[in-house]
């Protein structure tokens, strides 16, 4: 049913349609509306049978999910930002144990400095934790990906995160078509794992594996992740057959492959990029957008296919690795290795800074007119003057201090105290 609904509410309803038996939750913005809505659905009995655990930390939220999933329950949780980092140890544990937990990440920056707004620093910091990582571009896609995520997780016995941009999507009210319970029931079979914690058939799970078998276990984890490169498109195709709309998959290109210039991105910014692409194509600039919907496993071959004819690739990403640069950019370069396609790493939207059409037009013009070098790390809309001034000050007086507060002291503003 199509309705005007907040992204978080829509996702909560989609999750409920998947009939999770255990939901564990801990509050962190901007994920809170999702688990609040699920609490309502459990309390009113609309989602039943389901146990809702409001725990004392994100670490406990995922730990409870691990116990519940190992006991054979379909299990869901959600988090963001610092919460995802606080889960880090349990993230690796869940994937290592092959537990098909589904988790929403309402993507948000990581501190310090503390910042509650959207970027992809959270999920990118955990990119190699063994979870399948899907990215939603719209709230409709977030809804659809959650339904697909449970099917994917349970088929491959791997945990799955569905990433949706914090606030930009979670708090946006827009039209969403929610599937019916009958549709979801037909698409998603009951959860029937091979091994569960059952007194009728006792198993030991989580034993200490030594050097004689550890590598093999890890290789099997990798092999299962790589199988997702086949399973993700198949489930997306099955979903389209069942629900009548395309959603998910590994990649999507707009408007078509084969453009001279391709902008690669993940998540909601693709909507803005598509509009810029339309405007530039109207001016006969041959540009296209490539959206990555599945970041882990990395669809290397598919990306190589999609980009190999391009004359240049711009990777616009909402996170970066301090000390080296672009993260998605590195992955794209790997996909293009041996091909003469220059890659431009552009970091944008950190800590919620808006990515505007105007800035994107400027960026595209700079790239097309060779005012930016490939392989040079570029920050969109950077206040260069402020950064240069602070770097200069530090070079004159190299003493340690917190970055953000150093700037304040430099401009004569003291945040606390009377002098």
């Amino acid at each position, binding site marked *: 049913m199509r309705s005007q609904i907040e992204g978080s509410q829509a996702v909560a309803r989609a999750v409920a349609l998947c009939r999770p*038996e*255990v939901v564990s939750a801990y509050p962190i913005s901007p994920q809170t509306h999702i688990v609040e809505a699920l609490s309502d659905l459990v309390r009113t009995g609309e989602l039943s*049978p389901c*146990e809702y*655990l409001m725990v004392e930390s994100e670490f406990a939220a995922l730990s409870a999910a*691990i116990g519940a999933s190992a006991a054979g329950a379909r299990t869901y949780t959600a988090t963001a930002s610092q919460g995802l980092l606080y889960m880090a140890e349990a993230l690796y544990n869940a994937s290592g144990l092959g537990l098909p937990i589904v988790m929403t990440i309402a993507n948000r920056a990581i501190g310090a400095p503390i910042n509650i707004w959207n970027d992809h620093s959270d999920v990118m910091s955990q990119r190699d934790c063994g979870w399948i990582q899907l990215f939603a571009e719209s709230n409709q896609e977030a809804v659809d990906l959650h339904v697909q995520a449970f099917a994917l997780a349970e088929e491959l016995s791997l945990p799955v995160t569905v990433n949706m941009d914090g606030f930009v999507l979670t708090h946006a009210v827009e039209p969403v078509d929610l599937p019916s319970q009958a549709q979801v029931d037909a698409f998603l079979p009951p959860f029937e794992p091979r091994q569960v914690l059952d007194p009728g058939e006792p198993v030991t799970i*989580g034993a200490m594996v030594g050097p004689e078998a550890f590598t093999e276990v890890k290789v099997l984890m990798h092999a299962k992740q790589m199988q997702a490169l086949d399973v993700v498109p198949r489930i997306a195709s099955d979903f389209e057959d069942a629900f009548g709309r395309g959603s998910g998959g590994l990649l999507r290109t707009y408007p078509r492959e084969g453009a001279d210039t391709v902008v690669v991105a993940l998540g909601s910014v693709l909507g803005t990029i598509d509009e810029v692409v339309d405007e530039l194509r109207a001016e006969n600039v041959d540009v296209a957008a490539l959206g990555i919907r599945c970041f882990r496993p990395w669809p290397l071959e598919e990306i190589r296919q999609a980009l190999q004819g391009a004359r240049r690739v711009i990777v616009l990403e909402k996170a970066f690795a301090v000390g080296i640069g672009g993260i998605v950019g590195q992955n794209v370069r790997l996909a293009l290795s041996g091909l003469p396609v220059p890659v431009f790493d552009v970091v944008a939207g950190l800590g919620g800074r808006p990515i505007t059409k105007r800035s994107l037009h400027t960026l595209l013009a700079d790239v097309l007119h060779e005012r930016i070098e490939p392989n040079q790390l570029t920050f969109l809309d950077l206040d260069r003057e402020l950064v240069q001034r602070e770097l200069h000050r530090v070079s004159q007086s190299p003493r340690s201090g917190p970055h953000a507060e150093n700037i304040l002291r430099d401009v004569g503003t003291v945040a606390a105290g009377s002098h």
Partner: protein
Amino acid sequence: MSETIKLYQLGTFAVGNRLLDPDDRSVQADVERSNTLTSGHRACQGCGEALGARYVLDAAMRATAGNLVAANATGCLEVFSTPYPESSWQLPWLHSLFGNAPAVGSGIAAALRAKGRTDVRVVAQGGDGGTLDIGFACLSGMFERNDDVLYVCYDNEAYMNTGVQRSGATPPAARTANTKPVGDEPGNVFGQGKSAPLIAMAHEIPYVATATVADLHDLERKVERAMEFRGARYLHVLVPCPLGWGSAAADTIRIARLARETGLFPVFEAERGEVVNVSKIRGRVPVEEYLRAQRRFAHLFGEQPRTDVIERIQAGADRNIRRFGLLEEM
């Protein structure tokens, strides 16, 4: 049999079942016991934790007719019982992480409730480091929510699995790998202490008990009592560690008994935050006898004995005796 048997008439707490009513005999005396932690594991000789865990889990298995699931924290108990591909566990058992066993237990209990399997009960267990330090937030959360989990802490008073480092349960003056008997204040600091049982009681959960491996009948009885309640329960078992305490493997039971008889380790039961039963000291012993049996306190008895430190430890034991009423009424 009308007369109440006092087990100490036999000089030991561990045998004497033939004199008891069948209903009062220990679970371990039953050939039908489940051997939940079965033989072949790799615990050290004289390991108090292995002994305690076997009694706890077999008693819990009997109390639940075998419908039991265990969550285990990282630590000695996990490492010595599950060297892949082997396992000593004869119940469904999950090890996740060091600090999350209470939360994993909560998750298992939630799954069982959702599936209508309320006949299956959950035990979560760990050592003192996993319980009092790294897992403390998860433990408190599980208590506060009153999740249907029996949490068992096997307390050997330090991080034994990683090589005997100090934990929040290490007693004052004890030598560990990072509180060595060097400097002016040898051994562990005299802090404020951290009584997990009292903190558990402050959550007003249905049942809290302490026990030692010196009185295994008492331990079994407390497990059975714990399983009569629904909700969060906490059992804190003192389990001497020959390796970490520097004691003879054959002395594990004796040292556990001395811990109780000195008053250093009060043995009691509490329901909903109120103490309901205290195991009285039968023959009071000065702490020196307990300390001398363990090399972790050897530096107190060197060429220049630290009588000042021993007196402080004795004062702690005396306080426990007053606070919990550990002596028989005169």
